[in-house]
Every structure is written in structure tokens, then in C-alpha cells.
């Protein structure tokens, strides 16, 4: 039982936290700007590299570097929007999808060119797990990840529920056309969307880097599960994305548990397939997702 929790459920939760933070940005851009942003993973990667740079140059603690990396990434996301997406604002969304695909490839090359392809690390070395109730073990970095996710999710919740801009974001995710007719400052909402989406992606990247390591394709590799999380939760629904991220993270890990016999149910190498399967099933069975999102 404790083995199950320590080695399957908690790692699933950690993964889920990272997916959730990334998926919020995907679902917001999907809902508000109406396109699937393939370059979102690169926001994660670049956030992790910004943090790595701060940690290695100034010896900063990763947690201190994280907010700075988030701000820098948000700034990058705004710049990309200004020069690459804004010109396509009234174009069919397929153009934006293709643009984002191009930006993804460009960003990957720029990252490799700037920081090299060597794997780097920012985690504070080996840590002894903390024992709770004798058997429950959790490592400090995992506690950090859970705590950071809770704080960030709370901030997003506050923004969306209590601020004028946050409400306008939800309104625009409901209906961009009506938002415009209502006089909502749609460009302002779009900027906020990039700031939140980019910032959270960077946070997810830094947390992933703390958990594992920094490498140039780290964000790209999470793109599929993050999309699966956004679709599972319902497009345009940030709370759905959080739930979807946690479900997919946990599901991926639990599928490697030896439920039948002594072999993992699904070999760990194939666990990415779980996210894919969930995504396909949802698209067929309930495309609006758990939280009744948009159907495209």
C-alpha cells in the first residue's frame, strides 16, 4: 500500500502538477485566442533555461529564480504574440496553429544554440526523503513542487474570479464576439492571457527542472500530455485543465503499477501513450471535456 503511494501515486501527483500548470496556458490560449498553441512547450523549456542561467550565474536558489524566470518568459510570450500572432488575429485559426508550429521549431533551435544540447541540472542535489507516518515518504523537492503549484493555482483562481481582467478573460473564452460587442478590451485580455500562460508554463518548466533536469526538449515532450489535460478538462476551462493535468499525471504513473501479476501493467516507456489514449477517448466520447468546454 505505502509502496503504491510512495512510488506511484506521489510521482503521478508531481507529474500532474506540472501538467496542470502547463495545461492552464494551453487551455487559455485555446479558449481566448482560438488556436492550439504548439509552441507552449517551449515556454516551459525557456523558463527552465532562464532559471538555470540565474542559478548558475548568481548562485540563486531555484525557488528565487522561478519568479524571475516566469516574468522573463511572460515577456518573451508577449513579444512573440506581438510579432508573430497579432498579424494573424483575424485569420482562420489554422494559420495561427501553423505559426505556432514554426515558432516551436524556431524556439527549439534558439534554445539549443544559446545553451547547448547538454543536459543541465538546477536541483539542489540528492535529498533525503521526509518520512511521514513511518511509511509515507516524500522528498523535499516534491513538497516544493506541490506547494508551488498550490500557490500558483490559488493566484490564478483569484485572478479569474475576483479581478476585472480575469472575469473578462472568462467572458472572452465564452464568446470573443460578444466580448467585443460589450466593449471589453480584447487586446488587453489577450496580453494578460500570454502573461499568465507564459508565466505558468515557465513555472512548470522550473519545477520539472527541479524534479529532473534541464534539457532542450523538455517542454516539447510534455506537449502531448498537456494538450490531453486541456481537452480532458474542457477547452477554455482553466479549472478543467488543472483537474485534467492531475488526472493524466496520476493515470500515467498508475498504469505502470503491477496491477496484474508482478509486471507493470504498461511498461514505463509507454506511459506517454496513456495521455494519448485518454485524449482520443475524450475527443470521441465527450469532446467538451469534464468541465463542458468549447468543442472545435
Amino acid at each position: 500500500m505505502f509502496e503504491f503511494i510512495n512510488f506511484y501515486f506521489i510521482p503521478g501527483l508531481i507529474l500532474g502538477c506540472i501538467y496542470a500548470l502547463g495545461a492552464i496556458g494551453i487551455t487559455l490560449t485555446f479558449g481566448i485566442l482560438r488556436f492550439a498553441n504548439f509552441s507552449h512547450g517551449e515556454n516551459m523549456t525557456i523558463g527552465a533555461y532562464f532559471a538555470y542561467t540565474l542559478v548558475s550565474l548568481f548562485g540563486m536558489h531555484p525557488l528565487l529564480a522561478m519568479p524571475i524566470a516566469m516574468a522573463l518568459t511572460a515577456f518573451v510570450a508577449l513579444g512573440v504574440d506581438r510579432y508573430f500572432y497579432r498579424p494573424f488575429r483575424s485569420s482562420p485559426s489554422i494559420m495561427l496553429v501553423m505559426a505556432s508550429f514554426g515558432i516551436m521549431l524556431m524556439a527549439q533551435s534558439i534554445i539549443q544554440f544559446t545553451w547547448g544540447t547538454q543536459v543541465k541540472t538546477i536541483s539542489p542535489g540528492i535529498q533525503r526523503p521526509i518520512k511521514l507516518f513511518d511509511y509515507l515518504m516524500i522528498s523535499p523537492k516534491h513538497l516544493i513542487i506541490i506547494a508551488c503549484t498550490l500557490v500558483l493555482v490559488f493566484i490564478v483562481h483569484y485572478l479569474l474570479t475576483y479581478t476585472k481582467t480575469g472575469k473578462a478573460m472568462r467572458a472572452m473564452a465564452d464568446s470573443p464576439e460578444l466580448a467585443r460587442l460589450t466593449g471589453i478590451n480584447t487586446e488587453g485580455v489577450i496580453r494578460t492571457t500570454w502573461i499568465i500562460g507564459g508565466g505558468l508554463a515557465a513555472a512548470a518548466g522550473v519545477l520539472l527542472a527541479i524534479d529532473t533536469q534541464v534539457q532542450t526538449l523538455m517542454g516539447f515532450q510534455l506537449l502531448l500530455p498537456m494538450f490531453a489535460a486541456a481537452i480532458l478538462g474542457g477547452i477554455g476551462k482553466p479549472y478543467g485543465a488543472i483537474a485534467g493535468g492531475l488526472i493524466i499525471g496520476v493515470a500515467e504513473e498508475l498504469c505502470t503499477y503491477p496491477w496484474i501479476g508482478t509486471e507493470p501493467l504498461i511498461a514505463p516507456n509507454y506511459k506517454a501513450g496513456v495521455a494519448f489514449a485518454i485524449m482520443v477517448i475524450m475527443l470521441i466520447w465527450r469532446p467538451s471535456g469534464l468541465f463542458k468546454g468549447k468543442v472545435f
Partner: protein
Amino acid sequence: MSEKKLVLLLENVDGGYGDSQILTDINMEVHQGEIVVIIGPNGAGKSTAMKSVFGLLNLTKGKVVLNGKDITNMPPEKVVHEGVCYVPQTANIFPSLTVQENLEMGAFIRNDDFKPRMQEIFELFPPLYEKRAQPAGTLSGGQRQMVAMGKALMLEPQILLLDEPTAGLSPLYQSEIFEIVKQVHAHGTPILMVEQNAKQALAIADRGYVLVDGKNKYHDTGAALLADPEVGEMFLGGGKAATISKRKPATANAKTKTTPKSKSKTTSKANSKSGIKKPLPKKVKDPSLKKKSTTTKKSGA
């Protein structure tokens, strides 16, 4: 009415979506303190005429003037700042936002304290106050329509545009919406509204326009249009009216030459004389329609 201030003017407006022209030479006026109703068959371009005020389609000719200011082809987000509020026919609320949040969004461009205004809206629509914390999408059709209107009224607009506010509602709610329209009007907001429910709408209207096939067909005071047998046959035949118009008489009417004149003069006299007496198309299904049209006497409002 001519001495009343002219709030909104559409002058010889042509416009459409992309390449397809829908509106031809549309003229309309709304004066201070008026309720003006647009009626016409399905697909006549009623919604399109309303969208033309709101910068939602490309006007190729003519102009739209609000309180003396030319707002032709001004984008919608700017038109809102000019004090025009528009309740579209469909998708006119934010379903996942609560009722109160919908009203707050209606006040998005206000930077002052809009709490008192919201209080007034809740007084106008008591059911909304009870449901203010519920997502608007969970409300009944009539209440959603109230949210849509309340949201538009948050700005205390110079003029309110309503596109079929009673469509799809139960008779009870329809009457209620008409009551509210009257109340809003009584508070001094001029209203331009499209209605399928022509009888009730004309009854509260100061003036009405009949659009057919994207053109002005008739124009008179509400009472005069109500009394006009042709208009009556076409749109007011009780339950039948709805059926007929749903069958798209617009296509049938398409061939008829339209009223050459309906340039609305500002004087009601000119209006009532000019528009009203065009022969009706033979093709319209109801045989009684072909009877000689009588001149509407101007039943002075």
C-alpha cells in the same frame, strides 16, 4: 416627433457580409424618447440592419450618424464607447459567468462606481437578483434575455438596440420583456428593436419599419402599421403571422420592386404617406393578401 432630437440616423445605407450585399438603401431614424420597431420576414435583413449600426458589417454606401456624429463603419468596440448598446439575437450572454459577472462585464468600459446602476438593474429584473451568483447559462430563456438586456443597460446607453428580445420565449415572458422594454424606455432610453412578435411590438412602438428583402418597405407610426391591412395580413395574423414569416416570404417578395421612395423624411407626415401603399406580391401564399391596399390613415401617435 420631428422636434425631438435625432439620436440615430441611417441614411441610404448599403451593406452586407463579404461580397454579398444584403441591405439596399436603408433609411431609419430613432429620435429621443422613441421606441422604434423593425419587422419583416425571416431573412429580410433586420438583424443585418441592426448590425450595420454596430460596425459589424461592411457598409459600402450611406452613413450612420449617432447624435450628430458620423459612426459609419466604426468598429464595435468603439461604438460601445459612443453609448450604443446592442443585444444580439443569439449568444448574447456569457454563459459560464454568473449573472452578476455578466452585468459587471456590461459595465466593462465604466471606470466609475457602477454599483448603484447594478442595483437599479436588479430592481428592474427582480429574478436576476435572486440568481445573481448562478452561472447565467443555467437560467431559463426568459431570464437569460433579462441578463442580456441588463448587461446592455449597465452602460446607461444613449440608445439600446434589441434584436428579437422575445424570440423563443413563452407568452408570459414575452409580455414581461415588453413590459421591461416600456420601463427602460420610460426611463428615457430610446430603443430600436427587431421583433417577430409584430403585434405586441408595434403596440408599444412610436414608429415601425417594415423591411423586406433588405429594403425599406413600409414605414409609419406603430399604430398606423398595426391598422394597415396589408401589414396586418403579412405580419399580424395572430398565430398565422409567425407561420407565414417562418416560411420565408422574403424569397417570394424578392421580385417585387421596392418602394422607390422610402427615404424617410423627418416629418411623420411624409412618412405615413409615402411608404405604405405598395401593392403586395402575388406570390405570397395567403390569398387574402392580394386585396387592394388601403392607405393607412395616419393615426397620429
